[in-house]
């Protein structure tokens, strides 16, 4: 067994032979963590972050830099990694047993503390790589941990930039729009600017929520959300300091209006819509069963996909496990019934990063094993 003697790296001591590279990496880390925090904090905090961007740039970033340099020894220590790993495992395990998985995802896995733990793991990986002396003996470990860092970065990219919707088509119907799965509250002002906020439907906490639309108007909105009535009824209560207004909205129904002083707002509650750079036409879909049973053998959907820019038409049969890739989007078959089919449309810029990082990590790990074996025998 090798034992690793913990020596503080030059970074921790303040002697900085690779300062430019390290600074870049550090800023990348901070950028990633910052965007993450913004995404996972409630909308109020997100707005506060953008509003105070100059302040953050002036004070918080340099402070963070100093903090990271002070903490790099702590972050790079193996026991820190172990503690973070155990915390992540415990939280994930408990959440998956205690909650149904949609709820666990909404309340735990995408919540700020959990994501912050993942970010801490990321910082620990970074400190492990750059905070210790670079020797040839450590190369496999560096490849492995860089791979993991890349993979985790891929997950963060997915969290921020992944789009995923569905398209419900009947036979001979065509569409170039996918519906997003989250519920959204849309607010349009006099000037025609539209703003939306995600309304977490799966969450039990959503029955009373305060949201801020500070980025467009100094409005405070209170949602009284009732998921029990099928599509859900949303009561919006808005105030801007002096005046207040009310509107009751049905899921996907007609928009309501809010009059506050001299401003008029139009509010709508429904699914978000994803405009796609292609049009899908469903010709036929169905189920083929195994003989003498009700066990499905194939689900299929025959489609034509026409790309908007090039006008290229493609005929394809979608099967489970056989998706279609068009213009960066993944079109897969979600479900089929007698009248039509539901297609899952997704685009995920983080997936490539994740798999690249994963492959790198596996390669680094294998390299390390081979090296270790070669030495010991």
């Amino acid at each position: 067994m090798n034992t690793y003697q913990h020596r503080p790296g030059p970074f921790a001591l303040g002697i900085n032979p690779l300062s430019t590279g390290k600074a870049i990496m550090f800023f990348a880390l901070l950028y990633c963590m910052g965007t993450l925090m913004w995404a996972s904090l409630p909308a109020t905090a997100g707005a506060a972050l953008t509003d105070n961007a100059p302040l953050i740039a002036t004070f918080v970033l340099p402070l963070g830099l100093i903090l990271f340099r002070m903490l790099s020894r702590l972050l790079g220590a193996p026991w820190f990694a172990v503690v973070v790993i155990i915390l992540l495992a415990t939280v994930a395990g408990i959440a998956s047993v205690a909650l149904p998985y949609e709820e666990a995802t909404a309340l735990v896995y995408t919540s700020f503390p959990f994501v912050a733990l993942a970010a801490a793991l990321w910082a620990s990986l970074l400190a492990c790589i750059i905070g210790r002396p670079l020797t040839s003996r450590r190369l496999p470990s560096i490849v492995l941990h860089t791979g993991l860092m890349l993979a985790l970065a891929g997950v963060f990219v997915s969290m921020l930039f992944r789009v995923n919707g569905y398209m419900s088509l009947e036979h001979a119907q065509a569409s170039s729009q996918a519906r997003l799965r989250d519920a959204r509250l849309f607010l349009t002002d006099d000037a025609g600017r539209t703003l939306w906020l995600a309304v977490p439907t799966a969450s039990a906490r959503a029955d009373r929520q305060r949201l801020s639309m500070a980025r467009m108007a100094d409005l405070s909105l209170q949602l009284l959300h009732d998921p029990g009535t099928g599509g859900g009824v949303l009561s919006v209560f808005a105030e801007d300091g002096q005046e207040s207004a009310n509107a009751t909205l049905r899921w996907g129904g007609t928009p309501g209006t809010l009059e506050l002083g001299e401003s008029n707002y139009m509010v709508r509650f429904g699914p978000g819509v994803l405009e796609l750079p292609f049009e899908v036409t469903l010709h036929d879909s169905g189920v083929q069963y195994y003989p003498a049973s009700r066990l499905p053998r194939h689900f299929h959907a025959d489609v034509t996909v026409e790309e908007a820019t090039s006008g290229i038409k493609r005929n394809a049969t979608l099967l489970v496990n056989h998706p279609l890739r068009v213009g960066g989007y993944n079109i897969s078959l979600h479900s089929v019934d007698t009248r039509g089919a539901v297609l899952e449309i997704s685009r995920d810029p983080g997936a490539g990063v994740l798999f690249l990082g994963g492959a790198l990590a596996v390669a680094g790990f294998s390299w390390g094993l081979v090296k270790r074996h070669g030495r010991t025998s």
Partner: protein
Amino acid sequence: MRRIFLTPLVLAVAMCTAAASDTPGRQAGLEQLARLPSQHGGRIKPLATAAAEIASHEGHSFGRLFAQGRRSAAVAALLSLSTCDEAPRHRVFLRVRLFPTPGEWLSADDAATAHECCDDARAFAGLATRTLAAWNSSDAAAFNTAADELAIFLEKLHRLHDLSTARLSAELALDSYRPFLISGLIYILTWVPLVVLVTKGTRGSSTRIAGPVAGGAFGANLAALALYTWVAGRLPLNNTYEGMLTLAGFLGLFAVGAAFSRRFFAVTGMAGLLAGLVLLAAELTPVRSTITPPVPALQSLWLQVHVLTCFVAYAAFAITFAAALVVLGSGREGVRVRFDGISVRAALFGFIFLSIGILTGAAWARQAWGRYWAFDPKETWALVTWLVYAAYLHLALVKGRRRLLRAVAAIVGFLAVIFTFIGVNYLLPGLHSYA
């Protein structure tokens, strides 16, 4: 008071005799029927297998069918379910598809009402009805004759349709001779040399049998897996039962491989014992299932890559676990050091395969569902397992001598493995509901 432990045995004997008393003198006819090919649940399978599936679906005790080889008991159960002629639900025997055609096979009920069909179909319907009537009349001689006539009549048709019965015989053999159970029992024997090794601390003369025993068990296991693969037309990876059979195969492979090594000889005993336990658990609990064709979600090459790599990891982690138990339990320092080394090496090996397993699973999920990660319980628990072993390896590789802590981590890790493999399937519903 001690006699209370005999209760299960007494019950088992009573059940067997009860099952046997159903069929005095009618065994020959039942055997004839049991071998008949039938089309049920999307496959061509022996009537005995179809009958067991139907009987268990109708609430008949599956355990009892297993009590005396499924062959005739299952057919007897099927015929007994068909007593009441008025209610269509109870005419199940006449609804089993025994009459071969190029497309969907015909049952006796179909054949009787098929207008434009040939005389053969009507003749078949008559024979099947007569067989059932003879069963209900409890006339053993009449039943045996009717069953024989039905079998001979159908055999003629099978020859006409070029139907090979080799696979059906193999499927019956898998049910009757229980090769997985037998190899599991042989695997268990490797326990003896392991005990010697752990208590004495050296390889005594009795440990010499470990290699041949493991080899024999693995041979039987591999042959059974090959037979299963041939019968099913796919690798046994599609449900928990099949997964356990394959997992035992990997453990057996480790056991045989380690038998050739001086350094890892102890792995033979541990892996062999674990393989035996896995096979016994698979064969003797309700996990056991019949062969079904793959649903669309499982028709992918990724299935093989993803499941096989995960099982290699599970097998390696099982060895880590067993070695950690020895580390905790043994009083000898030499034994502890040796088993700790084995534990860490197995964990390293398993970790890399679990990583590949999770990555290939993510790639498959991306292809099938459009997203590589959905926090489905199986995924979450695979991640938990991965994290636990990541912590374990940091404890192992970074500062040398925390053997006790490591052993505890290995045990926690294996509990996570068991929960990922078995617990999630039964306790937490999700996307991986089929396995």
